[in-house]
């Protein structure tokens, strides 16, 4: 359960990866080749979008996968904040940052966010390397 793409190591705790996480589903999520789960999530998110497009607006966050420090933009020299300890929510719209409506961003997500330049490719996950790689895909 570690980020697919990160921008840096965490300057706060030292051991975490500052990974890019996307909150909410992209309008073009059906192009994502993740899985049927992704399609299901997209369908439900589409319904949610219809109901309240402003709250369901997808957006990116940079989150440390150890200490949970959050940056609103892909630059760890900017101000960070911490989420609620038990109900961690996006500072942008209050959606859960660890729930089903969020995920570690794929490169397609990151391109959509316009954050491609911030990615440090040396910190990319190796999807096929670990036998327990499914752990990190959430």
């Amino acid at each position, binding site marked *: *359960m*570690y980020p697919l793409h990160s921008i840096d190591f965490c300057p706060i705790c030292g051991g975490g990866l500052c990974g890019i996480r996307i909150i909410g589903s992209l309008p073009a999520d059906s192009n994502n080749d993740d899985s049927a789960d992704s399609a299901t999530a997209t369908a439900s998110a589409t319904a949610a979008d219809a109901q309240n497009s402003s709250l369901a607006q997808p957006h990116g966050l940079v989150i440390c996968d150890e200490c949970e420090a959050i940056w609103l933009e892909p630059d760890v020299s900017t101000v960070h*904040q911490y989420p609620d300890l038990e109900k961690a929510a996006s500072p942008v719209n209050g959606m859960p940052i660890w729930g089903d409506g969020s995920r570690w961003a794929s490169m397609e997500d990151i391109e959509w966010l316009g954050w491609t330049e911030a990615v440090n490719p040396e910190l990319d996950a190796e999807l096929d390397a670990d036998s327990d790689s499914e752990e990190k895909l959430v």
Partner: protein
Amino acid sequence: MNKKPYSKNPLGSKSKAGGIAVIVLAGIYSLVAPQLNTRFGWDLPAISADAQGNVRLAEKDSSRTGEPSSGDRSSTGKTSGTYQPSDSSKTKSPAKSKPSDGKEIEGQTDDLLHGLLKEVSSNRYQSPEGLLYTPGSAEGHRLNHLERHTKDMPSRPGSHGVFDGEMAGALKTIDRAYQRAKKNQKTTKKVDDGRTIYTVDMGGRVGYVGGRDGKRRRNPMARRVRIVLDGNRVITAYPM
């Protein structure tokens, strides 16, 4: 369970009187037990009568004993807020085991998770040094997050600290580190917006460095522990 507080000999001339006595005692017990539970924090079982009118001790409500229900077990634990050890057979202290009849033995309600943690309220566990492990994190519970640091993730970018001794070892090491940190023994401390980050030199091996960097360095031993806290609540901890 050997204890049969309400069993009476049903035979002989005293059987009717005995039966009445049982009913009277059961009635008194039903009235008094809840009050005793409330006042003293006991967990006396309720009683009920079966179809034949026999008075029996009811099975304990699993949600009150801290034992996960069968429904809870089906969940992955992720984001549910419920801590589910990855290998429950290794994680409960011996006192947690139940006799074959499925009922808990009296006096064993203070069982410790991983032999160390006391459940102070639902899904909230406290260590002897006062650290709290509560729901939260991407894994749903801080203990599930901590479990990440009981095994290597060899392809995780950077370093990934792995505690020796699985969960029980990790929890003991973290408590020892926190004990040292509170005394400021070989400890560096950083405070950031309510978070406290301790780095404690333990003076000897507590685990090893895994992850991609650790693998490249042939997994050197780790002798320091980093603990990230919010008050006394553990956010994460790992060896380094």
